[in-house]
Structure formats: structure tokens, C-alpha cells
């Protein structure tokens, strides 16, 4: 009856499976025990770096990282508020993550992109939508480290 229990759970839902909620929200990667590559998608049939099957094991990822590159999106789908900063963050475990960078001045970044490079950032979460059953949907963002 586990499925029923899941269906009636009124708790928030992560926007992607690799975001783990709870008291310490964090990302979970799948690490290849043969070549060390880390992936964010859990449903994977083999390691795409070395091709071996059965080598992927869950690994908790750090909530702190550094900005690799970014862009400022000024034009997007209807209903998505712009501008916002899309960012690629390198995590110490050796994997990169794409998300939004918040609490930064996008105009300053556009004037001087160097201000963004290697910026230390930390993961935060927020409710971004409600799904069809009325559950909160939670996404993760990065903000400059405090």
C-alpha cells in the first residue's frame, strides 16, 4: 500500500528527482564507481563516460559551489518572469549543475562578467508552483554564499 501512502502525502514535491527535500535539502548525484563520473539523472542504464553498467551509486552533493558561467535571460516563454540569471555551478564533487542565480544584480554582471566567475554560491530552495493535486512544487536556486 506504499503507493496509496505516497498519493495521499500532502508534503511538498521536488521539481526534479535529484533534489532531496526534508530537514537538509540537497542534491543527490549518481557516481560511477568505476570511472568516477557523476550524473544527476537517477534513471540511467549505464555510465555515459565509461559505458559500464551497474556501477552507479547515490552520493549526496555539497550545497556550496562556484559559478562557472552564466547568462541573463531577457526573453523567455510566456508566464516566466524575466530577466533572470541562468547559471552553471561547479560543485566540489566534480559535477556541474544548472539553475537560477538569485540575489545578484544582473546589470552589474552584464557590465562586468568577471564579477560572476568563481563566485562562491550556496543552494537554497523555494516553492515555485503547485501541481495538479495541489502539492507545493519546490525548486532549488543558488545565491552568493553568506
Amino acid at each position, binding site marked *: 500500500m506504499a503507493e496509496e501512502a505516497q498519493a495521499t502525502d500532502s508534503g511538498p514535491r521536488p521539481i526534479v528527482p535529484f533534489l532531496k527535500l526534508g530537514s537538509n535539502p540537497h542534491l543527490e548525484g549518481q557516481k560511477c564507481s568505476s570511472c568516477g563520473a557523476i550524473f544527476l539523472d537517477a534513471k540511467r542504464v549505464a555510465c555515459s563516460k565509461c559505458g559500464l553498467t551497474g556501477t552507479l551509486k547515490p552520493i549526496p552533493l555539497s550545497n556550496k559551489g562556484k559559478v562557472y558561467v552564466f547568462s541573463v535571460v*531577457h526573453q523567455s516563454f510566456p508566464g516566466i518572469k524575466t530577466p533572470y540569471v541562468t547559471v*552553471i555551478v561547479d560543485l566540489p564533487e566534480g559535477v556541474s549543475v*544548472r539553475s537560477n542565480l538569485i540575489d545578484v544584480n544582473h546589470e552589474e554582471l552584464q557590465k562586468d562578467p568577471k564579477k560572476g566567475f568563481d563566485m562562491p554560491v550556496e543552494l537554497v530552495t523555494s516553492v515555485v508552483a503547485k501541481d495538479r493535486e495541489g502539492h507545493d512544487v519546490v525548486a532549488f536556486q543558488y545565491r552568493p554564499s553568506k
Partner: protein
Amino acid sequence: MRNVYVLGTGMVKFGRYPEKSVPELGGEAALMAMKDAGVAIKDVEMFACGNLYQANAMVGQRILQQVGQTGIPVINVSNACATGSTAFREAYMACASGMYDVTMAVGVEQMGKQGLLGGAGGGDPAYGTEGKLGSGLMPAVFGQAGIEHMRKYGTKMEHFAKISVKSHKHATKNPFSQYRNEVSLEDVMNARMVGYPNTLYMCCPTGDGAAAAILVSEDKLKQLAGGRKRAKIAASVLTSDPYTDRDLTLPDVSTLTRRASKQAYEKAGIGPKDVALTELHDCFATAELVHYENLGLCGDGEAAKFIDTKGGCHPDLGGHAPVNVSGGLLSKGHPLGATGVANICEVVWHLTQDERAKERQVPNAKVGQAHVIGLGSACTIHILTV
């Protein structure tokens, strides 16, 4: 594999054709190419058609319904922005293998004003990640590729903008181009920002278009060319993304292109210095800049210097190593399925001194290359020679 030549080409001016259908547009280009080649549909033994937006709708067969149903094998190809060039490669392979002597490639697309918005996906929209976990939209993705170059080499936004100025200037000489207006550096820098650092004029427009080519074996060329100069396909390369550490988040357009470029130069037995003109995949100005280095037109980290010294400009403008003398995707337009074949048409026209390249002819062009990438991910490079 045996030598294959481009016997005929055809291209519909890129633009907006809401009154026409996809098979009509593709059929028009096919008829032009057949006329140019001096062949009829009954001579064509195999046909590869590239189209993306109607990939489930047998576009190739519907084109034959327009121009002649002869019962030949048809392959419908879909490979993102590399769709047309992959179709061309299929037609090349079919001929090079010895199976057929006369093959046809058509690339066609009707986008209207709709861009490549990405798959609809289905499911609950609450779990859509666009704008919530960054952006997968193309202006931002290629913006990041440009920003990576800024990070590595200190490249400035002005350098990307200069590429747009150059390509718009080139387009004024191309009657097949969707847009033929010049823009100044100020125009480009001050235009509406789409995905930093790509402003509106640094993004290719949406639109419709079609291009076609007739390919023949060497024996058939001797029979049909009637002494006319025809371009040989010296290399036809297709690659997909190799694994790179960031490829979950940042499509590695550079590694993809570098591998294809290395293979193409080796296959053709030439180097970048031998290339008289390049038509490369400038879906965004940021993409063109990184591809200067990826294709070896200048050294790593030297793209900004290349631009400042008029690299990529037509010789008539005092430039060298001309790139996108057609106006490129930025001006000519980027009807996704048509682009790859159109790039090859442009190179062929210069090599054969075809009147369709007249006003923008690159003098003494003996070697040219056409490059396309599709996310995510495919890269084709065709090197042609006379």
C-alpha cells in the same frame, strides 16, 4: 568509397511563405536543383529529405508527390539544426558507396515566426524547469558558450557584436538572404537583449526556406556535366557529443566541432589555411566566435584578435579567411531543416563561380567548408573542392 560531385543546386530565397506548404517549398528547390543539374526526376535514384517540424509526416515522399513519384527509396532525416546537412550526407553516402549514381538531398523548413521552443513534453506543467532551474533556451545556452570564451580569454561583448555587423554587411550582397540590411556596432550593442551577451541582432531569425542538391558519381559526372566545373565532396563528417565533464549542463559545442573539424581536414588532406571560404553555424554571434577557433581559422584564444584584424570578412571589405559571406544564419535566416543544404549551396556557388554568388564571389576559391551543429548533439562538416 568513390568520388561524389555536386552536379546541381537549388535554393528558395529564405523568408516567410505562409501561403505555401512544406512540400511546395521543398519541391521548388528540388526542381531548381534538377534543372541546374540537367536531370529529371526519373534520373534520380535515391532521395534524402531533411525537415524537423514535420518529422512525423513523410515530408520527402510528399515532395515527390509534387515533383514526380518514381518509386525511389526516400529517407526522412531529423537531426536538430544539422538536419539538412545530415540529409546531404545520406545522399552522399548512398552515392559514394556505389549503390546509386544520382541522388538528391533536400532540406526544407517552415517555421513561420516560431522559434525552436523545445519539446512540449507533456505531464504536469508545474514540473517544467525552464526559468526555474536556469534556462535551456538557445540564446542563453549559446550565450553561456560565449561567456565561457570571455572567462577563458577576456573576450568582450564588442567582439561578438562585430561579427553581427560583418555578417549583416555580407548579406547585402546576397539576394537569397532573409534580411539584407546593414547594422552598426551601436545598433547591435544597443538592440534589445535576448540572452546576454546575445542581443536581438546577434540571434538568427526564424523563417522558412528550402535548398536542394543533386549528387553524382564521377562516371555520371563525365556523362552529365558537359564540361561544366563541378565541386567534389572532399570530406563528409558527422559527429555526436563526446562525454565531457559539463555536458549535463553546458552542451559542448566546441569539443563536438573540433572533433568533426579534425576528421574533415584529415579526410580532405588539407588544413585550415587552404580553405578559401567557410559557411559556419552562426545561430548566434557567440557561436560564430568560438567556431573560428574550433575550425582552426585562428589559434585558441585568438578569436578576438582575428575579428579585430578583419578575419572572417570578405576580401572586398579588406578581410581574410572569409566566413559566412552569404550573411550567415544571422541575416540569411535559419529555417532549421534547410540550413545545412543551403550552406553547401553557398560554398558550391563560390567554387564553381556560379552566377548566384556573383556579387559576393570569393575570388579564386578552390576549397570551401560548410559546418553545422545541432543540439544536442550533432556536428556535420563538408569540405568541397574544385
